[in-house]
């Protein structure tokens, strides 16, 4: 998912900016190190596996900052002076926010990698918060941006409601913030309480308000999806309308008798 998301960013960014990617070698470095380090991560500290695996996994989580920094710098340099004229629909905000979420998630993972920190975050709501940030904040935003960028170009007509694109963007960002921040804060508080030996039922009850807040965020996300759906539906309806009009024009056009020159 990380590779596909990054690939999308590096595909769209040069097209948006109308210039080649800032550095192909930096992109290669990002992809290669992401594969090398990323495939080792994900083993939590304290799991019933040999300790060296946890240590290796934590180290790799921190090393992941290398590809993330490389990708972020490369993207930033490519789109650094993008003018509004190049990007009238302003789909760039999707990619910029997606990259920001990518960096934030990698930072959070690196910070919570050592066992001294991860005992507050492992097995709590902090894990789902990070998954949301990566899967939605980064990957889904990239895919939305790609859909908004590619679909009109493939079909050859503009979206019927370009303002809804902006609205979807704000709903998506608000939704991610409302999902990720409460879950992350709730997770850390949960971990702290469990470390302080608070009775489990009290810990559980303390989480409820954070879960309610994150449900509000999910509602924002759902509304955003409806906007994307209506825009895409409108696009297709327009497309078929124009096809139909063309066909009708052809059918109803006065027939030129063969051989008769006007």
């Amino acid at each position, binding site marked *: 998912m990380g590779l596909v998301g990054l690939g999308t960013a590096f595909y769209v960014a040069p097209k948006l900016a109308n210039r080649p990617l800032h550095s*192909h070698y930096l992109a*290669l470095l990002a*992809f*290669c190190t992401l*594969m*090398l380090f990323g*495939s*080792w991560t994900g*083993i*939590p500290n*304290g*799991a*019933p*596996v*040999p300790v060296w*695996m946890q240590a*290796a996994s934590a180290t790799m989580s921190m090393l992941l900052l290398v590809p993330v920094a490389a990708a972020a710098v490369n993207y930033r340099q490519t789109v650094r002076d993008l003018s509004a004229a190049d990007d009238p629909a302003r789909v760039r905000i999707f990619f910029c926010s997606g990259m920001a979420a990518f960096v934030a998630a990698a930072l959070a993972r690196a910070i919570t990698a050592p066992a001294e920190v991860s*005992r507050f975050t*492992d*097995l*709590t*709501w902090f*894990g*789902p918060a990070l998954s949301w940030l990566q899967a939605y904040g980064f990957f889904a935003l990239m895919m939305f941006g790609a859909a908004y960028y590619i679909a009109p170009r493939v079909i050859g007509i503009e979206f019927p409601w370009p303002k809804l694109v902006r609205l979807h963007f704000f709903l998506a960002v608000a939704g991610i913030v409302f999902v990720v921040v409460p879950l992350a804060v709730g997770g850390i508080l949960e971990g702290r309480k*469990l*470390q*302080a*030996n608070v009775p*489990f*039922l009290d810990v*559980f*009850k303390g*989480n*409820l308000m954070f879960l309610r807040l994150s449900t509000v965020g999910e509602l924002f996300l759902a509304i955003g999806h409806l906007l994307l759906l209506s825009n895409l539906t409108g696009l297709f309806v327009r497309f078929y309308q124009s096809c139909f009009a063309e066909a009708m024009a052809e059918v109803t056009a006065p027939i030129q008798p063969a051989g008769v020159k006007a």
Partner: protein
Amino acid sequence: VNFGPIIFLVTFFAMAGSWFGLVLTPQMQLGHLQQTNSVAGSGALYPVSRPGLARQGLDVYRSLGCAYCHSQQVRQSGTVCDVYLNDPGTNRAAVLAAISQVNPNASESQAREMLTNSTVPILTGVTRQVADTAVKALSVGGAKPALTIVPIGPDITQGWGKRQSVAEDTLYDYPVMLGSQRIGPDLANEGLRRPDLNWHLRHLYAPRLETKGSGMPPYRFLFTKQKIGRAPSPEALALKEFGPPAGYEIVPTPAAAALAAYLQSLRTDVPLAVAPFSMPEAPAPADTNAPPTNAGPAGVAALKTAAK
């Protein structure tokens, strides 16, 4: 720019590297694990495979997605040592002096209590070195001090286990239900903490009956409501609240019985060489000569094995 060969090579190395590191090496390290009788002191075999019904219950546990809310892994942050006096011996004055030397904070009455009551620890939460020195100092006048190993950590304090979970615990489970979150409590030792099968059945039917304020959803569909026949079914749940209307009874389905049997079978209460612990020796009942049930030095032997 043609990066094809480089990308192929790096992808190959990345996949091969993580396969060697995360599949092959753990397989070489843990794949040979088998049931052992290296359980310190007791000679018992560990782990034992789950009984048939409990094995079926694992599948029910899996199908209901219990692992999304319940973890089955106890973590510990370390071990400390406690020192007890199993037998005060004959020279009480010398032992009393030794106690006040080992634990200068204890008042005289406390020291006397430590001398006579073998369940009162003389030292708690000390390192192995300190404990060893104390044991040596207390071995005067025929007194028999004992050193016990106590795992510490928030999970242990919550009462979720006596020691950390290790790979050996899950030898016979497939798939392993480690879980990734604790929306509900850890279940690694659920059978140890709640040995009552009927408690589990009632709790599955109506969690709030047993735990006020529980957030667990009731699993009513694992039970059937039936009319009481000639006599009430022996399997029917004894419900104080949430009960069926008069003339009806709630009986568990085979799935509920299997799940409850599985929950009852969850126990990792055996000290292992990789995860030692020991408990204070229980005083033998006065009227029998039965040996104490919990062998105190068991964990010490385990620690020695681990140190080798």
